[in-house]
C-alpha cells in the first residue's frame, strides 16, 4: 500500500534571489522533485500599452525603454521600425549603421547579464557575474557617451537616431571590439568545461524542437532547441542583410545549449560590429526629416526584430491622429516562460532555478 502523501507547495517569489525581478512561481513539490510549476506574473505591470495610447509617437519611445531594461535600445528600435513602416519613413544610411551597432552592443550587454546571472543561479557566487559585468560596463560607458544615460537610453527616434555619436566614440568602440574575443575566450575557459557546470546543465530542462515551435518560443530558447530561426537572417530588418554572420544553434535544447548558443552569439555580434565599423559612412545625416508631432496615415503595422531575448514585436495601429490608436507589445520573455513547466517538471528545485535562469527573462518586458 503506498504511503499517503500530500503535495508540498513552495512559493518562489515575488521576492526571491533568483527570480530576476518580481516573478512568482507556485511550485508543487514531491520531496524535492517538481510536480507542477505555475508562473504568476503581473507584479511589475505599469500599463505601458495603455499609456502609449495617450502619448505622441515620439513620446512612446521613452516608455519602450522600460520594457526590457537590460537591453533597452532594442526596444526603441523595434518600436521605431514599426512606426517607420506605418508612416513609410526612410532612414538615412549612417543612422541605420548606428542602429545596428547599438543593437549588437545591446545584444552583447544582454547576453553578458544573462550568462552571468545564469551562472549565478548555478551557484557560482557572483564571480562570473562580476567578470561579465566588467565588460557590460564598457558597453554601458559607450552608450552613456552617446546618449547621456546608462540604463534607459531613449536614443533611437522615428526616422533615425537622436544625435550623432561623439568623436571619441569610434576609437573606443574599436578598442572594445578588438579586445572582446579575448574576454569571451576567458569566459569559455572559466565555465565551459567545468565538470560541475556540465553536470548541472547538460540534459537538464530539455525543450524539444516541436514544443519550442508550438509554444512560439524565440531567441536563444528556440535556437537552443535546434531551430535555425533568426529574424536577422530570415526576415532582415534595418540593414542586416549586408552583414556576414552565422546563426548558432543548439542540438538537444537543454540548459547548456541555451547557454552555449548565447556565448556563440556574442562572438557573432562582435563579428557584426567589426564589419559595421568598417562599413559605416563617416559623415551623413542621422535622422530623417520627421516632425516631432507627426501624423502617420491611418493603418496598422507590425515591426519585429531579433531582440537579445527573442522576437520582439510592436503592433502599432494608427487612426491618423497625433497619438497611436493602439500599441501592442509582443515580448519574447512572456512567451518563453510558457515553456518553463515543460522544461522543469520532473527535475529538482535547484534545476528549476537554472532552467528559469537559462530562459533569461526580464520582468519589465513580461509585465509591461
Amino acid at each position: 500500500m503506498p504511503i499517503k502523501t500530500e503535495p508540498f507547495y513552495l512559493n518562489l517569489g515575488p521576492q526571491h534571489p533568483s527570480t530576476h525581478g518580481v516573478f512568482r512561481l507556485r511550485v508543487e513539490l514531491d520531496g524535492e522533485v517538481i510536480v507542477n510549476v505555475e508562473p504568476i506574473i503581473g507584479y511589475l505591470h505599469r500599463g505601458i500599452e495603455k499609456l502609449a495610447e495617450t502619448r505622441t509617437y515620439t513620446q512612446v519611445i521613452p516608455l519602450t525603454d522600460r520594457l526590457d531594461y537590460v537591453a533597452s535600445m532594442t526596444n526603441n528600435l523595434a518600436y521605431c521600425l514599426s512606426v517607420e513602416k506605418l508612416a513609410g519613413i526612410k532612414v538615412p544610411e549612417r543612422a541605420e549603421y548606428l542602429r545596428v551597432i547599438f543593437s549588437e552592443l545591446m545584444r552583447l550587454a544582454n547576453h553578458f547579464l544573462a550568462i552571468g546571472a545564469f551562472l549565478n543561479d548555478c551557484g557560482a557566487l557572483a564571480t562570473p557575474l562580476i567578470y561579465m559585468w566588467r565588460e557590460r560596463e564598457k558597453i554601458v560607458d559607450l552608450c552613456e557617451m552617446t546618449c547621456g544615460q546608462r540604463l534607459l537610453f531613449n536614443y533611437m527616434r522615428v526616422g533615425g537616431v537622436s544625435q550623432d555619436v561623439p568623436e571619441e566614440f569610434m576609437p573606443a568602440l574599436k578598442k572594445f571590439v578588438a579586445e572582446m574575443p579575448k574576454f569571451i575566450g576567458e569566459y569559455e575557459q572559466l565555465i565551459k568545461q567545468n565538470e560541475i557546470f556540465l553536470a548541472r546543465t547538460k540534459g537538464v530542462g530539455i525543450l524539444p524542437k516541436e514544443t519550442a515551435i508550438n509554444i512560439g518560443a524565440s531567441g536563444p530558447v528556440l535556437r537552443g532547441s535546434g531551430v535555425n530561426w533568426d529574424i536577422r537572417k530570415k526576415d532582415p530588418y534595418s540593414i542586416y542583410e549586408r552583414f556576414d554572420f552565422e546563426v548558432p544553434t543548439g542540438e538537444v535544447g537543454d540548459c547548456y545549449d541555451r547557454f552555449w548558443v548565447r556565448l556563440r552569439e556574442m562572438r557573432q555580434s562582435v563579428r557584426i560590429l567589426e564589419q559595421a565599423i568598417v562599413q559605416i559612412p563617416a559623415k551623413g545625416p542621422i535622422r530623417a526629416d520627421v516632425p516631432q508631432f507627426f501624423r502617420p496615415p491611418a493603418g496598422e503595422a507590425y515591426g519585429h526584430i531579433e531582440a537579445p531575448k527573442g522576437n520582439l514585436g510592436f503592433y502599432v495601429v494608427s487612426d491618423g491622429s497625433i497619438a497611436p490608436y493602439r500599441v501592442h507589445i509582443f515580448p519574447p520573455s512572456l512567451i518563453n516562460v510558457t515553456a518553463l513547466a515543460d522544461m522543469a517538471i520532473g527535475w529538482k528545485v535547484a534545476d528549476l532555478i537554472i532552467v528559469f535562469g537559462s530562459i533569461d527573462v526580464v520582468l519589465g518586458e513580461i509585465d509591461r
Partner: protein
Amino acid sequence: MKFERYGIGIAKGMALTLKHLFRPPLTVQYPDEKLVVSKRIRGNELVWFPDRCTGCGTCTKACLQGNIILVTHRGEPNKFIVDKFELDSGRCIFCGLCVESCPYDALAMGLEYECAKYRRGETILDKDKLKLTDQHQPSAYYRPQFAAGLPKQSLLIYDKKDGGQKLNLFPLSKRKRGPGA
C-alpha cells in the same frame, strides 16, 4: 553525467580566477573616488536660459509626463514674458525630449547628479533654481556647443594613460578617507 575530464575544466576555471586575483579591481570607492561622467549626461537638474526662452511651450508639449508648467503673458508685440517655468524633478524621467524639442536652445540637461533631497517639495525646480550658475552647468546632451570645456569621460575601456578610469593594482592603504577627499 560523467567526470570525463578528471577535473581539468575545474582547474582551468580556478586558474582563471587566480589570474583575476592580480588584476586591478573594477569598483571605485564612490564618495572618495569619483568617475567623470559623460559630457552628454542627462543629469538630475535641467538648466534654463531665460533670455533665450520665448515661451513657445514646445517643451511642455514634448514632455510625456506633462511635467513642465509654463505660464506666460503677452508683453511687447510678438513676445511672451515667462511668468512661471517650473518642473518637478521628482516626476521627471530625464528622457531629454524637452531639450531635444526646444527650437531656441533655451533648455539643456544639467551636469549634476547628486541631487538627493530630503523633502518632496525641494524637488520642484522653479525659475531661479533652473538658472545657470557656477554650480549649475548645462551638459552637452543635444547641445554640442557646451561640450568644449567639459572633462573627458572616464571609461573603463581606456587605460590610465588615456585619461580613463584610474585603477591601482593593490589599493591597500593608499586611499584617502573622508567625504569628497
